[in-house]
C-alpha cells in the first residue's frame, strides 16, 4: 500500500494579503483586489484593471540582492518561506531544515518582466552584455535558484508550465513523487507576476472584462488578471508523523487530462475537466457525493464558465442539475486569474475551506449561470463537517487538472490506483526520433548584419517530413518548434505502431521554448502599439502550446505536461515519465526535448560574448528536437534507461565540479562515460572528473534540451552497439548536473 500524502504547511502572497491567513480572512469576508494597473503602461489596452499584489519586505536581503530579484522571485520567496515555516521546516535563521528538498513548482511567465525589458531594448537600441545577463535571469529556473539560495536547500526540481492548470499539476506531481516512493517531502506551489506581455496578450484576445469580472454570471464578459505565489509542503504520512508536525489535511487525489478541442477554447461539455475531476475523485477513494466544496476555475469568460458548468453537471449531477449541497465558487473575481499560480492558490483555498468550514464567496453575480445557480457560494456562508473538497483548473492548450483534499483521518485505510506501485526499476526505450539541424553552419535568415561572421545550425524546414507537417491545421500559426516536436514524436512512435493513444502521455521539455512567436508578438506590441497586438500570435507564446498541438495531431487526450528549465529539464522530463509509468497512469510516455532559434536570441548570445570567437567559447546556437518513447522495461534485455539522477545544483562555478562528482557518484563505477559537454566551460569539468573510459558524442551545436535529447539517443545507440552500460551526464548552464545510465542487453 502506498503512503498517504499529507499537507503540513501553506504560504501565500496574493493581492489580498502578504501571507495566507490575511488573504483567507479578506477573501471569505468578500473583499476583492480589483484596481487600475500601475505596474506598466496600459494606455493602449482595452482594459485597465488587474489585481496587483503588494510585495512583502525581505529584511534579511541586502538592497543590492533585493534589486537583483525578479518580481516573480519577490512573490515566490516569502510565500515559500511561509509554507516552510508553517510546516516547521525553517530554522532560526530562516533556512530550510532539510538541506535536500524536492521542489515541484509552476509558472507561465517566470521573470518575464526582465525579458520584456531586454526585448524592448533589443528592438530599440543595442544593449550591452550587462543587459543580457539581466534577461538571462527571466527564465523560470532562476526563480527556483533564488528559492534554493535564500531558503538554503537544494534538490531535484520540476518546473511545470501547463498554462492556467500548472499550479494544480505542480502539486499533483509532488504527490505523485511521494506516492511512487521517490521522496518523503516536497515543496510544491506556483508563482506568477503581472507582466505587460501577458496583460497585452489577454487584452488582445478580448478575454478580459473592461468592467467587473463576474464568474458564473450570465452576463459575464471576461476575466481579470492577477498575480500571486502560493506554496504548500507535502509529506508522506510517516515522514510527517516522524517529525511530529501538525497535519492540515490529506491530498488524496489528482487527475489530469488534455482537451484537444481548440488551443484556447474548452470543449463545450468540458470533457477533459470531467475526466480530470473523476480521476482525482477515484484516486481519492471517495465519491462525488463526498465533495462539499469545489473551487472552480471560473475565469468569467463566456466559454470557460459554460464548459465548466456542464462538467460539474456531469460529475456531480450525473448529467442533471448539480445538487445544492455541492457548494461552488470561483475566487478569481477577488484575486484575479493568477495563471501559473492559480492552481496552487486555489488549492490552498480548497484546503482552508475543508479545515475551517468557511467558504470563499463567488463575487459579482447578478444573475447566475443556470447550471450552477443553486450552488454558488455567497459571502458569509459556512459548511462544517465536509469530508472532502476539490479544485479544478482548465488551461490554454487544453491542460486540465483537478485535486481532491480530504480531512485527515489517521486511522483510515485507503485503496488507491497507485497502491503498491514503486518506480519501475528500468524504463524501456521503445522508440527514438530526432529532428537535427543541417550539418553545415549557416547564416540565419533575418539575423542582423551586426552578427558578423558568426554562424548557427538551423533546421531545414523545406525538407520532409517538416514540409508536409506545415500543412497540419494546428501547425498553421504555430512557432517552428511545433514542427520539430511533431516530426521527432512521429518518428519515435513509428518504432512501436501498436502503442495505444488512450494509454499514452506526453512530457515536453524546453529551455527557451517558442521564442519566435514570443519575439514576433512583442515586436508587434513595441512597433504597432498595445492596441494592435496580435491575437493569433499570443497563444503561441505560451510554453505548452506546442505540446498541445502535438497532442492534438497525435490524438493524445491523456496526461500532457510541459516542463521548463535548462538542459537538465530533459532529465526532469524522463523523471516525470517514470512517475506516470510507476503510478500506472499510462503505458507509454513520449518525452520530447525541443528548441527553436530566433535572430533576437542569436543577437543576445553575441552581445553576451558567447559567439565570439566560437572556437574559444565552443558555443554554436542550434535548434531541433529529440523524442523518446518510454515504457516499462519488462525483460531487462531491451534498450533502456537503467537509472537517473537529477537536481545536483551549484551556485558558483567553483562548486560545479564537486556537484558533478556528487551526481556521478550515484552510479556504478566502471561504466563507459560520455563526454558531451556543450560548452568549453564544462569541458574543464569533464577533464577533472575521475579517470575512466569515455565516449565522445557528436556535437550538433547547442540546442539546450534538444541537445540533451540527441545525446541520449546517441548514448542509447552506443549502448546497443557496444553492449555496455553508458553513463550520460547532462550539464545545465544555470547551475545543475543530472545524469542518465543507459543499457542494452
Amino acid at each position: 500500500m502506498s503512503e498517504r500524502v499529507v499537507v503540513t504547511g501553506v504560504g501565500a502572497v496574493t493581492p489580498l494579503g502578504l501571507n495566507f491567513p490575511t488573504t483567507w480572512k479578506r477573501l471569505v469576508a468578500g473583499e476583492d483586489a480589483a484596481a487600475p494597473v500601475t505596474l506598466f503602461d496600459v494606455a493602449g489596452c482595452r482594459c485597465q484593471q488587474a489585481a496587483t499584489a503588494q510585495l512583502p519586505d525581505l529584511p534579511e536581503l541586502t538592497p543590492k540582492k533585493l534589486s537583483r530579484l525578479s518580481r516573480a522571485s519577490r512573490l515566490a520567496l516569502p510565500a515559500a518561506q511561509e509554507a516552510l515555516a508553517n510546516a516547521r521546516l525553517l530554522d532560526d535563521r530562516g533556512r530550510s531544515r532539510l538541506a535536500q528538498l524536492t521542489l515541484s513548482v509552476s509558472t507561465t511567465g517566470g521573470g518575464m518582466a526582465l525579458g520584456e525589458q531586454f526585448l524592448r531594448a533589443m528592438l530599440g537600441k543595442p544593449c550591452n552584455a550587462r543587459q543580457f545577463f539581466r534577461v538571462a535571469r527571466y527564465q523560470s529556473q532562476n526563480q527556483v535558484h533564488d528559492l534554493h539560495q535564500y531558503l538554503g536547500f537544494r534538490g531535484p526540481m520540476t518546473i511545470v508550465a501547463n498554462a492556467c492548470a500548472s499550479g494544480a499539476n505542480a502539486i499533483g506531481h509532488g504527490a505523485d513523487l511521494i506516492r511512487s516512493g521517490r521522496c518523503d517531502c516536497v515543496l510544491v506551489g506556483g508563482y506568477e507576476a503581472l507582466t505587460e506581455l501577458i496583460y497585452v496578450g489577454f487584452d488582445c484576445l478580448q478575454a478580459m472584462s473592461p468592467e467587473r469580472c463576474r464568474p458564473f454570471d450570465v452576463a459575464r464578459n471576461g476575466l481579470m488578471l492577477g498575480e500571486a505565489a502560493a506554496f504548500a509542503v507535502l509529506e508522506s504520512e510517516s515522514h510527517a508523523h516522524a517529525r511530529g508536525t501538525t497535519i492540515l489535511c490529506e491530498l488524496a487525489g489528482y487527475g489530469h487530462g488534455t482537451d484537444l478541442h481548440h488551443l484556447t477554447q474548452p470543449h463545450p461539455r468540458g470533457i477533459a475537466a470531467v475526466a480530470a475531476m473523476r480521476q482525482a475523485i477515484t484516486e481519492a477513494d471517495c465519491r462525488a457525493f463526498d465533495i462539499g466544496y469545489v473551487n472552480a476555475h471560473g475565469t468569467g469568460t463566456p466559454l470557460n464558465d459554460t464548459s465548466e458548468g456542464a462538467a460539474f453537471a456531469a460529475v456531480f449531477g450525473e448529467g442533471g442539475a448539480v445538487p445544492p449541497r455541492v457548494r461552488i465558487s470561483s475566487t478569481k473575481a477577488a484575486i484575479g486569474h493568477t495563471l501559473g499560480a492559480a492552481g496552487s492558490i486555489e488549492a490552498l483555498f480548497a484546503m482552508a475551506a475543508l479545515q475551517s468550514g468557511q467558504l470563499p464567496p463567488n463575487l459579482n453575480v447578478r444573475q447566475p449561470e443556470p447550471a450552477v445557480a443553486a450552488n454558488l457560494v455567497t459571502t458569509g456562508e459556512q459548511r462544517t463537517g465536509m469530508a472532502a473538497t476539490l479544485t479544478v483548473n482548465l488551461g490554454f492548450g487544453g491542460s486540465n487538472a483537478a485535486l481532491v483534499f480530504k480531512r485527515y483521518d489517521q486511522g483510515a485505510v485507503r485503496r488507491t490506483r497507485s497502491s503498491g506501485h514503486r518506480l519501475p526499476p528500468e524504463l524501456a526505450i521503445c522508440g527514438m526520433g530526432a529532428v537535427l539541424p543541417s550539418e553545415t553552419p549557416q547564416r540565419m535568415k533575418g539575423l542582423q548584419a551586426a552578427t558578423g561572421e558568426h554562424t548557427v545550425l538551423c533546421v531545414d524546414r523545406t525538407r520532409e517530413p517538416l514540409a508536409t507537417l506545415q500543412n497540419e491545421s494546428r501547425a498553421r500559426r504555430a512557432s517552428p518548434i511545433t514542427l520539430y516536436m511533431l516530426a521527432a514524436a512521429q518518428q519515435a512512435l513509428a518504432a512501436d505502431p501498436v502503442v495505444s493513444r488512450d494509454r499514452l502521455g506526453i512530457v515536453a521539455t524546453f529551455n527557451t521554448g517558442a521564442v519566435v512567436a514570443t519575439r514576433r508578438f512583442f515586436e508587434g506590441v513595441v512597433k504597432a502599439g498595445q492596441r494592435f497586438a496580435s491575437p493569433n500570435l499570443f497563444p503561441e507564446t505560451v510554453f505548452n502550446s506546442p505540446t498541445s498541438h502535438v497532442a492534438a495531431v497525435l490524438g493524445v487526450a491523456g496526461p500532457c505536461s510541459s516542463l521548463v528549465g535548462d538542459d537538465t529539464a530533459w532529465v526532469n522530463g524522463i523523471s516525470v515519465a517514470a512517475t506516470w509509468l510507476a503510478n500506472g497512469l499510462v503505458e507509454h510516455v513520449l518525452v520530447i526535448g525541443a528548441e527553436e532559434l530566433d535572430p533576437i536570441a542569436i543577437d543576445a548570445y553575441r552581445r553576451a560574448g558567447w559567439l565570439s570567437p566560437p572556437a574559444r567559447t565552443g558555443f554554436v546556437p542550434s535548434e531541433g528536437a529529440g523524442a523518446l518513447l518510454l515504457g516499462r522495461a519488462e525483460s531487462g534485455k531491451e534498450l533502456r534507461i537503467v537509472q537517473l539522477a537529477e537536481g545536483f545544483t551549484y551556485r558558483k562555478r567553483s562548486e560545479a565540479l564537486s556537484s558533478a562528482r556528487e551526481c556521478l557518484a550515484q552510479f556504478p563505477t566502471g561504466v563507459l562515460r560520455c563526454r558531451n559537454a556543450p560548452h568549453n566551460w564544462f569541458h574543464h569539468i569533464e577533464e577533472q572528473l575521475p579517470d575512466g573510459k569515455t565516449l565522445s558524442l557528436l556535437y550538433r551545436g547547442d540546442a539546450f534540451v534538444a541537445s540533451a535529447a540527441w545525446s541520449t539517443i546517441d548514448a542509447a545507440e552506443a549502448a546497443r552497439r557496444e553492449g555496455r552500460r553508458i553513463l550520460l551526464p547532462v550539464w545545465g548552464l544555470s547551475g545543475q548536473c543530472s545524469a542518465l545510465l543507459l543499457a542494452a542487453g
Partner: protein
Amino acid sequence: MADVSLDELKKLVVENCVLKIKPDEIGEGTPLFGPGSVGLDSLDALQLTVAIEQQFGIVINDAQVARQALQSLGALRLWLAQQPGAGAK
C-alpha cells in the same frame, strides 16, 4: 470610405491568418468560417478585427457585426464601403 480592392483584402487575410494558400485561391464569395470555407477560427476573427482597425481605422466592437462583416471577402468589402469617415492608413 473609399473602395478597398479585393486583392488588398485577400492579402490582408492570407498574411494575418498565416494561411498556406495563395491570395488568389480565395474567391469573393468563399466563406471565411465554417464548412467549405477558408478554415478560419475565432482567433482569426479577432486577428482580422485588429488588422482592419490598424489598416483602415475602423473599429469593430460588436461580435454580431464582426460575424456579418467577416462572412466572406465580398461581405467585408461591402461592409467597409458602408463605413463613414475612415480610410486606409
